[in-house]
């Protein structure tokens, strides 16, 4: 705890302890407790990104408001302060650029990135203050007794006024750490009081039915080699759909770009699982849902494509040599308008009856399959699917030479994605170290292919954008020229990446690389 602060919880009132925020009587004659001013009401809001980037970085961000003051405090997990800032006029969710310029923002920026900071728990706290005195009547510690009532987001099953135990924080005064520690020991001996095992934040979160880090876009399911393959595939698909659904409200509200990104990844993974491992599911089910997931994927594409442009806009504009950033600006505005329109389309789609139908029927139908999953074992099935996906990558890549068209690299990229998804879906069957090495090698190849494809697509799109902007007269000649310069930069980069491809593929297709995948499929197939 920070600077020797000791924290306790007051267990529910009984005969031994007065109700409310009353402390148990102090029985140690060396100490006494007196009131220290009137109690105060604070609004506490704990913030993190949707994917818990601060929590995962060992940080805690809290906004405390009360008595006309609002403060944003960043602490390490042990309570040590890292940075603080006055939080005047801030509304949540907020992007990093919405925070005041200063050390706090500087510290958060690389961790938060493009994600919004949003409340993960909110509570109103009535704080009573007391002084702990020694036998000379000298204050040795300040006591803060917090009665907390949840006011923020909570799981649907949590009652509206979920109870959070009252907390007592004993903060030693300078030069009185030893006496304050003895006081805290004496206080802990009283009835109805116990050492706090969790921070206020964790307590508030628990009361809201949540736990820190309870969202991840990773496929965190535990499969076993012996379980029926259909059950394994259903488990993965259900998990992927949970991830997709978790991101829908944030996508509709357009809180930040990564809700849509995670939604798209979950949908794409679901489509790949249906394609590559759907053979263990009833044929009718796969046939019924593949078009639905394709529809959902297509619905999300235009907005994401424009997000990619807008997220990379500054870097793109910085590469201009002949053109200037102001000349390119109409392109930015065009992208922004297009994005706003496609976001409206996307939100409409996610609110549609078709999506609601998918959201309610898909989990139900998956449950139906899981009830009678058949006898095919997951291990052998996974090994076979991975091995054949791996062979497809090797065949497809091996056929590429210097004269191959861009489409050949694009096809290889798709085969690589399929292999990657299979490796991730069945990751829990593999040795983690082997899995990590195999995925890393594949990732290096995918990055190369991805950049090649992106530069290819972006050049074509830039031309299309320029044509449309000229048609609706929203592009002055200087803007089109600047866009042409960017297209040229992309072409140069694409050529360089094309040159790197052969080496990357050779690494992946090497005997060592092949042995890695073989080792994985061996352990999975056992």
């Amino acid at each position: 705890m920070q600077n020797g602060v000791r924290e306790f919880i007051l267990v529910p009132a009984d005969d031994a302890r007065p109700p409310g925020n009353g402390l148990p009587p102090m029985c140690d004659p060396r100490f006494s407790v007196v009131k220290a001013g009137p109690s105060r009401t604070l609004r506490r809001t704990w913030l993190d990104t949707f994917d818990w980037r601060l929590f995962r970085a060992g940080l805690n961000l809290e906004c405390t408001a009360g008595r006309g003051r609002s403060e944003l405090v960043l602490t390490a997990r042990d309570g040590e302060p890292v940075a603080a800032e006055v939080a005047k006029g801030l509304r949540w969710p907020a992007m990093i650029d919405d925070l005041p310029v200063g050390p706090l923002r500087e510290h958060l920026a690389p961790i938060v990135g493009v994600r919004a900071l949003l409340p993960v728990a909110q509570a109103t706290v009535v704080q009573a203050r007391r002084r702990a005195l020694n036998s000379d009547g000298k204050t040795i510690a300040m006591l803060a007794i917090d009665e907390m009532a949840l006011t923020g987001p909570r799981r649907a099953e949590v009652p509206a006024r979920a109870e959070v135990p009252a907390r007592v924080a004993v903060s030693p005064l300078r030069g009185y750490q030893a006496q304050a520690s003895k006081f805290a020991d004496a206080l802990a001996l009283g009835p109805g009081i116990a050492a706090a095992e969790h921070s206020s934040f964790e307590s508030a979160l628990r009361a809201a039915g949540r736990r820190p880090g309870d969202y991840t876009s990773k496929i965190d399911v535990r499969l076993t080699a012996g379980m029926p393959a259909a059950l394994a595939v259903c488990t993965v698909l259900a998990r992927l759909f949970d991830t997709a659904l978790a991101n829908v409200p944030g996508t509709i509200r357009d809180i930040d770009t990564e809700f849509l990104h995670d939604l798209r990844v979950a949908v794409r993974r679901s489509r790949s699982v249906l394609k590559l491992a759907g053979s263990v599911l009833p044929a009718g089910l796969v046939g019924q849902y593949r078009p639905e997931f394709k529809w959902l994927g297509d619905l999300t594409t235009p907005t994401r494509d424009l997000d990619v442009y807008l997220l990379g806009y500054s870097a793109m504009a910085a590469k201009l040599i002949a053109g200037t950033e102001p000349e390119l600006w109409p392109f930015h505005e065009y992208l922004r308008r297009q994005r706003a329109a496609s976001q409206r389309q996307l939100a409409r789609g996610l609110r549609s009856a078709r999506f609601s139908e998918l959201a309610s029927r898909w989990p139900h139908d998956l449950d139906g399959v899981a009830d009678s999953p058949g006898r095919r074992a997951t291990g052998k099935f996974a090994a076979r699917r991975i091995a054949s996906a791996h062979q497809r990558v090797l065949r497809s890549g091996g056929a590429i030479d210097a004269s191959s068209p861009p489409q050949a690299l694009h096809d290889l990229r798709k085969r690589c994605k399929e292999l990657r998804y299979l490796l991730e879906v069945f990751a829990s069957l593999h040795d983690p170290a082997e899995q990590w090495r195999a995925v890393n090698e594949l990732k290096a190849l995918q990055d190369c292919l991805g950049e090649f494809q992106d530069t290819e697509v972006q050049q074509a799109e830039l031309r299309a954008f320029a044509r449309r902007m000229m048609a609706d007269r929203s592009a002055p000649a200087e803007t089109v020229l600047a866009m042409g310069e960017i297209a040229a930069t992309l072409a140069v980069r694409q050529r360089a990446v094309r040159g790197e491809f052969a080496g990357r593929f050779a690494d992946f297709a090497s005997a060592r690389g092949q042995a890695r995948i073989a080792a994985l499929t061996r352990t999975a197939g056992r």
Partner: protein
Amino acid sequence: MKVIAAYNIKGGVGKTAAAVNIACLAAADGFRVLLWDLDPQAAASFLFRVKPRVKGGGKALIAGRRQVDDAIKATDFDNLDLLPADFTYRNLDLHLDSQRKSRLRGLISPLQGEFDLVVLDCPPGISLLSENVLRAADLLLVPLIPTTLSVRTLDQLTEFVAGLDRHRPRILAFFSMIDRRKRLHREIAEELPACRADVAATAIPALSAIERMSVQRVPVTASAPRSQAARYYRDLWREIRDELALSPAGPGS
């Protein structure tokens, strides 16, 4: 960081009462204040209910074996910390080097970032410690009982300070423990501030509320902020603030 020393060659003139109340008022204005009780009689420490003890005593502090920072105790007031007295302070002169009279300033200066104001509650007398105080202080706050001899003491002090090489603190004397029934008190307290710039306009009368501080063990500016005594100390604090060019709105403004 500014350093104020409540100092007089004579004892029992109201140094501690002034030091604790000025420290308290400055802290209430938002200044981060350290009060150093340099007097082995430990009256300021007693007032704040802090045990007059420093591990290793004054010798360890002067020798640098004990960090000043480690010996500081929080008082019951926000922004106000205390470096307690210790009975060994009576021997501080023995540990101070007669050649290096800036030792006290050397001990205080590392606290620069932590405090805005240091108030020294000095023991009476003129000694090696006093010379260190004169070199550490930006302002000497000199309580005077309005008698001819007291005024003569101020003259002697002024002359002594003028003779210092390099650092010379400013002097702000003020009349203390004035008995309005005594004609001499009244006359000196009225005449001297008019003709001397180093005498404050505020004069603190002998009030029982000030004497009772030692019974209640709380500075009168905190226990009875609306009392006549508290008002006088507030006036005096305003004059000190002006003398040191400190912002009335607190530090950083």
